[in-house]
C-alpha cells in the first residue's frame, strides 16, 4: 500500500471511530473526543517538529502546555484593579529584578569567568528580589483572597491568548535551549523534565500570578454560553427544526464551535509544518538529525538550528495548551501530570509516525480516542471476566475499581508494541 493511500485509509479509520462514537454513545462524547483530539494533534505536531524532524528529545511538553494555560489567564481574565493598586507594579518589578540578576550573573560569567563574583551577584540580586517581591505579593494575595487574590489578566479577547501562549512557551524554550541544548540527548531529556516540573511548581505557588491551587474558573470563552443559547428563542426554534431539544442542541452547537476554531488552527499549523518540512530548511534539519558531524562540515550552524526548532516546537505546544485551557474554561495547575501531558503526547508521535506531520496528527487523534475509550472498554472486559465471581466478593470489587488504571497499562503496551514491530509508526516518514 502506498503511503498516500495508507494515509487516506488511516484518516478514514479515525473518522469512522469518531462518527461511530457519535452513533453508539452520544454525539456529545464524539465531539468531546474530536475537540481534545484536535488539541492533541497540535501538541503532537509540535513534538514531531522537535523529535521527528530535528531529533531533539524534549520531555518537558507539560511545561509548555501549562504556560499556554497561564497565557489564557494573563490575556483574557479581567484585571483586578485593587490588587494592581496593592502591589501589582511591585511584584512585576521584582520579576524584572530576578531576570536582571540572572542575566547579570550570566554576563559576569561570560566576561570574567569568575565564579565567586557570579555567586555574589546572584546572592545580592536574590536578596533584593525577595525584599521587593515579598511585600508586594503579600499585598496582592490578601486582596479578597476568596474571590481573587491575584492580579488578573489584561481582559483581552480569549482567542488572542493562543498566540500569546505560543510566545510564552517560545520564551521559556529560548531560555531552556540556551542552557540545555548541546547536552547529549538523555541529559536534554532530564533537563526538560525538570523544567516542566518547575513551571508547574511556579503555577501552583505564585498565587499572585496564576491564583495557584485555588484555580482560575470561568475563563472567557470564544463561543456563546449554553445557557444564553437556551434562552434565545431563535436558537430554540432552530433546534426544534433539527429535531433536537434545546439543551442537547446548545451543547452540540458550543462544542462544534470549538471544533471549527481548533480545526482552523490545526490546518494552518499543519500546512506551515508541511511547507517547512519540504523546504530546503526541512531538508537541512533532517540532514542535521541524521548526521550532525557532516552537516557541521557543510557549514550548518547546528546549535543555532537546534535552538530554532526547539523554540518553534515548544511554541506550538504552548498554543495547544492555551487552546486546551480555553476549552476547559479553567486553569487547574494541579491537574498537570507528566504522564498525561508529556509522555502521552510522545506515544502519539511515535505511534503516528515520527518525522511525518500527518502521522503525528493521526497519532494525536488515535491515541486520544484510545485514551478516552479504554476505560469503558476495560469496564466491559472486567464485567465479563468477573462474571463468574460471586456478588460482593472483595476481588470483584477491586478488579472493577481498578479499571481506571487500565489506561496507563494500555498506553505502555501500545508504545512498546509499536517501537518493537513498527518503529517508524503507522505513517512512516517518506
Amino acid at each position, binding site marked *: 500500500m502506498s503511503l498516500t493511500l495508507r494515509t487516506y485509509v488511516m484518516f478514514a479509520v479515525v473518522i469512522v471511530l469518531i462518527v461511530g462514537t457519535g452513533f453508539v454513545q452520544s454525539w456529545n462524547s464524539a465531539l468531546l473526543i474530536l475537540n481534545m483530539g484536535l488539541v492533541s494533534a497540535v501538541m503532537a505536531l509540535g513534538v514531531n517538529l522537535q523529535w521527528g524532524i530535528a531529533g531533539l528529545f524534549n520531555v518537558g511538553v507539560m511545561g509548555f502546555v501549562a504556560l499556554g494555560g497561564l497565557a489564557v489567564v494573563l490575556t483574557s481574565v479581567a484585571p483586578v484593579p485593587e490588587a494592581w493598586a496593592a502591589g501589582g507594579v511591585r511584584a512585576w518589578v521584582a520579576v524584572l529584578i530576578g531576570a536582571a540578576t540572572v542575566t547579570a550573573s550570566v554576563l559576569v560569567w561570560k566576561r570574567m569567568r569568575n565564579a565567586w563574583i557570579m555567586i555574589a551577584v546572584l546572592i545580592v540580586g536574590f536578596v533584593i528580589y525577595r525584599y521587593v517581591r515579598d511585600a508586594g505579593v503579600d499585598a496582592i494575595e490578601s486582596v479578597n483572597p476568596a474571590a481573587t487574590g491575584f492580579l488578573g489578566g489584561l481582559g483581552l479577547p480569549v482567542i488572542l491568548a493562543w498566540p500569546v501562549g505560543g510566545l510564552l512557551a517560545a520564551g521559556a524554550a529560548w531560555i531552556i535551549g540556551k542552557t540545555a541544548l548541546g*547536552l547529549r540527548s538523555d541529559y536534554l531529556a*532530564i*533537563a526538560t523534565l525538570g523544567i516542566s516540573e518547575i513551571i508547574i*511548581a511556579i503555577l501552583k*505557588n505564585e498565587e499572585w500570578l496564576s491564583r495557584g491551587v485555588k484555580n482560575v474558573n470561568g475563563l472567557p470563552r470564544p463561543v456563546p454560553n449554553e445557557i444564553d443559547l437556551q434562552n434565545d428563542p431563535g436558537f430554540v426554534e432552530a433546534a426544534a427544526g433539527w429535531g433536537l431539544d434545546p439543551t442537547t442542541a446548545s451543547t452540540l452547537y458550543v462544542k462544534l464551535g470549538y471544533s471549527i476554531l481548533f480545526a482552523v488552527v490545526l490546518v494552518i499549523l499543519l500546512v506551515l509544518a508541511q511547507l517547512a518540512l519540504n523546504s530546503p530548511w526541512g531538508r537541512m534539519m533532517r540532514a542535521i538529525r541524521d548526521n550532525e558531524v557532516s552537516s557541521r562540515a557543510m557549514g550548518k550552524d547546528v546549535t543555532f538550528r537546534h535552538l530554532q526548532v526547539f523554540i518553534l516546537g515548544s511554541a506550538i505546544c504552548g498554543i495547544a495548551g492555551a487552546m486546551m485551557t480555553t476549552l476547559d474554561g479553567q486553569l487547574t495547575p494541579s491537574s498537570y501530570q507528566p504522564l498525561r501531558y508529556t509522555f502521552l503526547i510522545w506515544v502519539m508521535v511515535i505511534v503516528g509516525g515520527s518525522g511525518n506531520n500527518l502521522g503525528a496528527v493521526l497519532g494525536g487523534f488515535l491515541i486520544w480516542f484510545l485514551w478516552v475509550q479504554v476505560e469503558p472498554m476495560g469496564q466491559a472486559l472486567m464485567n465479563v471476566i468477573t462474571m463468574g465471581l460471586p456478588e460482593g466478593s472483595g476481588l470483584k470489587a477491586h478488579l472493577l475499581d481498578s479499571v481506571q488504571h487500565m489506561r496507563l497499562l494500555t498506553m*505502555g503496551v501500545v508504545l512498546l508494541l509499536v*517501537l*518493537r514491530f513498527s518503529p517508524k509508526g503507522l505513517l512512516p516518514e517518506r
Partner: protein
Amino acid sequence: MDFLNALVTLANFVLIPGIAYGSQLALGALGVTLVYGILRFSNFAHGDTMAFGTMSVILFTWLFQSWGLSLGPLPTALLAIPFGIVATAALMLGTDRVVYRFYRAQKAKPIIFVMVSIGVMFIYNGITRFILGADEQRFDDGERFIIRARDFKEMTGLDEGLTLKTTQGLTVVTAVIVVAALFWFLNNTRTGKSMRAFSDNEDLALLSGISPEHVVRVTWLIVAALVVVAGTLYGLDKTYKPFTYFQLLLPIFASAIVGGLGSPLGAIAGGFVVAFSEVGITYAWKKVLGYALPDSLAPDGLVQLLATDYKFAVSFMILVVVLLFKPTGLFRGKSV
C-alpha cells in the same frame, strides 16, 4: 546554651532529615548509575520500579501482619523486603527478556532505549496502580522513635528537642550495609569485577570472555535489590504514593549526574549533595539563626530561601550547574 540550642535545632530539622533523605536518594541513584554503566541508557522507569517494589513489600508486610508476625520494635516491612526484592527482580528480569534484550541484540541507540523505558514506565505505573491503587498507604509499625523530643529535653535540659525516628536511624544503617555489600561485591567477586570491566570497555570485556547476558542479569538483580530497599525506606520514612515515587525520578537523576553517571561512589555523594541542598534551601532558618546570632541580628522573617514546593527546582539547578560547568560530574563519570 544558645549555641547548643542552635545546633540541636539544626540537627533536628536539617541534618537528620537530610542524612536520611540523602541515603534514600543515594540508593536510588546507585540503581540509575548501574543501569547507565552496564546497559548504557537513562532508565526513566526507575521511579515506577521503585513504586512497584515498595508495593510488593507493602503487600507482604500486610500478609505478615495478618499472620501476627512482627519484629518487635522494628517495622515488619524489613522482614518483607527480601520477598519484595524477589518479586521486583522477577518483574525486571522478565522485562529485560521480553523488552530490552531485543534492542540490545539490535545495538539500538541509547535514545531508543530511553523511549522503551518510557513504555515500561507506563506499564509498571499501570500495574502498581492496578494492584494497590493510586492512594497513599501507610505500612510502618513497631516503635516510632529512637529519641523523643520531650525525653531529649529532659535529659539535656535544653529548650529545643531532638527527635530521631526509627525509620531515620534504620535508613542510615540499612543504606550503609547495602552500600558496603555492593562495593564489596563490585571489587572482590568475579562477577562484580566483570561488571566493572563491562562498564569500562564493552569490547575488551567481551573479548576476555565475559558473558554480556550474565552481566546484564546480575545488574538487574542488584538494581532490583537497591530499588526495593530505597523505595521501602522512603515509604517508611515519609509515605508511599505511586506519583511521589515517579517524581523522585528527578532528584535521583540529579544525584546520579551530579556524582557522575556510571560512578557508584559519585551516586552516593550526589545523593547527599542533592538532599542537603533541597532541605537547606527549603528550610526556614529563623529558629536556628535566632539562637546562633546575637539578639540584635536575629531575623524577622522566616529566612526560607524558597517555598517547599520548589524543591524540584533545587535539584534541577544543581543539575544544570553541574552539566554546564562539570559535565562529567564530581567523580568523573561517563560524559559525551
